[in-house]
């Protein structure tokens, strides 16, 4: 099992990527060093030619100018290509090889310009070490070949140029070659070790990266889960509280229905007897009307509480919306508000829980009527339509609308803006619509308030 949790391929890929990145970065860095070195060597060669050549291997003969020209032109030739390549293609193999060859030729030139001084030969070792900065051991091969070829050729044809003396021992080049090979061996080992280490560290880095990626993902998932848990716990606590309050309210409501019915019966009886006896006291008649109205209000509150406390499963059956709306409107005391039903006569019949949807319509129409209460031009419109397998039912009023703050909370239980109200009406509506697999929203954008109920064709919904 790899650290990245069963993704060895991913680690390999990432490690290879990082390795290439690191190696190319090193190529670029080393190429930059060589660009500077090439330029520096050129300047240095000119300086050496000017300062040392006259006193070098040609003694006091007039050769000063020739060496300076060599330094300037040969040096320029040697430096210009590698400088160009290191600047334009710092990571290419061609650049490295050209640099290797040019650097070793520079050694040859400097040795030549310094009159074959044995100390100048250290430039060869330094150059090889510099080339090893590339950590590409193969570069040491052309470099070594150049050094060897140069030494051999010059020992044969121009020994004072390389050893500073006219007749060196024949094995001098072997002695030089031995030290070069010795250094090569050391440098090749160093290159290989460096590459190996780079491979190890990039792999480790890839593993760490992927591990921390997966750790981050895990911690994100954990945080998300915690958030959800907290939210659902809050909802649960809230639901439990509401359920407890609801149960209590519901049982109280049940108990109240009997006395309420008795009072209502009594009030109806007294009203009738008064009408029969033609009793002229207008206050009594008026107060009986008030009793009836308030009793209706009480009955409505109890119904709301019971509806809220009990999550009834829906019993869907065909339910014509126009008749349902008419039924609901008949149950809403409308005073002088005009309530219209605006539905196409060929509107199909949806399958709904009639009782629950009647409650939805009653609550929405009631709210709308209350919103326009007291207006001369108060108007409430109930519309329905069907589009692409979706039903839409809207209840609009031309009242003052709902402000943004209230709009955020209107569907929450116990939230109310009315002086009189349980704050359960829209929560009941919303729950009933949800049980039909639908949703309700409030649109207050075009003046007044429009409640939009939408639900899908198959109103099966959740069994809740």
């Amino acid at each position, binding site marked *: 099992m790899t650290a990245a949790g069963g993704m060895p391929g991913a680690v390999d890929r990432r490690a290879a990527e990082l390795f290439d990145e690191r190696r190319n970065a090193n190529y670029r860095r080393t190429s930059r060093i060589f660009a500077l070195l090439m330029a520096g060597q050129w300047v240095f060669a000119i300086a050496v030619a000017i300062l040392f050549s006259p006193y070098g291997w040609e003694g006091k003969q007039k050769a000063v100018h020739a060496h300076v020209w060599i330094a300037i032109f040969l040096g320029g030739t040697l430096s210009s290509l590698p400088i160009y390549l290191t600047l334009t293609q710092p990571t290419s193999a061609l650049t490295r090889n050209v640099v290797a060859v040019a650097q070793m030729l520079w050694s040859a030139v400097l040795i030549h310009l310094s009159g074959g001084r044995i100390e100048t030969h250290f430039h060869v070792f330094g150059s090889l070490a510099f080339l090893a900065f590339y950590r590409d051991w193969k570069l040491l091969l052309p470099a070594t070949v150049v050094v060897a070829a140069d030494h051999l050729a010059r020992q044969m044809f121009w020994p004072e140029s390389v050893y500073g003396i006219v007749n060196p021992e024949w094995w001098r080049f072997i002695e030089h070659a031995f030290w070069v090979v010795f250094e090569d061996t050391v440098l090749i080992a160093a290159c290989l070790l460096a590459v190996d280490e780079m491979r190890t560290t990039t792999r480790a880095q890839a593993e760490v990266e992927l591990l921390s990626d997966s750790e981050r993902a895990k911690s994100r998932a954990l945080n998300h889960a915690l958030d959800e848990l907290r939210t659902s716990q809050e909802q649960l606590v809230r639901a439990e509280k509401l359920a407890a309050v609801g149960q209590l309210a519901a049982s109280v409501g*049940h*108990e109240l*229905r*009997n*006395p*309420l*019915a*008795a009072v*209502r*019966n*009594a009030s*109806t*009886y007294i009203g*009738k*007897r008064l009408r029969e006896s033609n009793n002229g006291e207008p206050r009594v008649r008026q107060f009986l009307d008030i009793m009836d109205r308030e*009793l209706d209000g009480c*009955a409505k509150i109890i119904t709301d509480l*019971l509806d809220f406390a*009990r999550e009834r499963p829906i*019993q869907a*059956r*065909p*339910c*014509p919306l*126009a*008749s*349902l709306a*008419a*039924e609901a409107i008949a149950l809403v005391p409308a005073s002088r508000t005009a309530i219209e039903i605006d539905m196409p*006569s*060929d509107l*199909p*019949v949806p*399958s709904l829980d009639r009782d629950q949807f009647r409650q939805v319509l009653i609550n929405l129409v009631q709210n709308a009527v209350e919103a326009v209460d007291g207006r001369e031009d108060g108007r409430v419109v109930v519309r329905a339509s069907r589009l692409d397998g979706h039903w839409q039912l809207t209840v609009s009023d031309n009242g003052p609308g709902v402000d943004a703050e209230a709009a955020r909370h209107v569907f929450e239980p116990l939230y109310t803006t009315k002086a009189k109200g349980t704050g359960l009406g829209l929560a009941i509506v919303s729950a009933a619509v949800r049980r039909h697999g639908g949703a309700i929203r409030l649109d207050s954008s075009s003046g007044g308030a429009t409640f939009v109920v939408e639900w899908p064709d198959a109103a099966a919904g959740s069994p809740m």
Partner: protein
Amino acid sequence: MGHRVLVVDDEDGLRTTLAANLELDGFEVVEADSGAAALARASEQEFDVVISDVRMPGMSGVDLFRRLRELRPGVPVLLMTAFTVEHVIRQALREGVHMVVPKPFDPERVGRQLRRAVDRPLVCVIGKGAVAMIGALSLPVRVAADEAEASALVEGGQVGVCIIDLATADAPRLIGRLRALDPGLGFIVLSGHGADHLLGPAAQHAPEILRKPVPPQDLVEAIARARGRV
């Protein structure tokens, strides 16, 4: 002489006020404050209709209904309840309770419902398709083969609810015609799958629509609702 009604409720306040209203409405009212008392009254004299509370100490309204059905078969029984649809009530409807009156109620409306229960207890089935389904239920049913027969039955004055099979009758026209004879008539339309569009504008006039095959429970509840809609 008005119909004789037995009002059964253990709550004195509700019982006496309802009784007073019904008397004012022209009923001859006898009160009973328990199921046992109600049975005693029913064995002493005949009643046209019984209205009883469901939750009472001792014998419940549903049990009372079962005993009355043996004692006085054919007398319609209405149940009052402060509770919305309850299992026992659904079962009672299945067994033949006439309808359920939710509390609190409008006593004048209860008067109308009681009167219709006595005067128009029958369910008229129009179209042969629905007959088999209805035969199994304990309902006072009359079958009409066609529109003319249906009109005659409704005119006869004993029908409270009509069940119309969309497959065999032109429901919109028939509803219009029968409603003219009795504005309080309840309608239940049986619809085949996807035949809802046949309803047309009549669908606007609040008939109960049931999609076939109709579960018996749904049918008895729809009939009870249709009876209550007066």
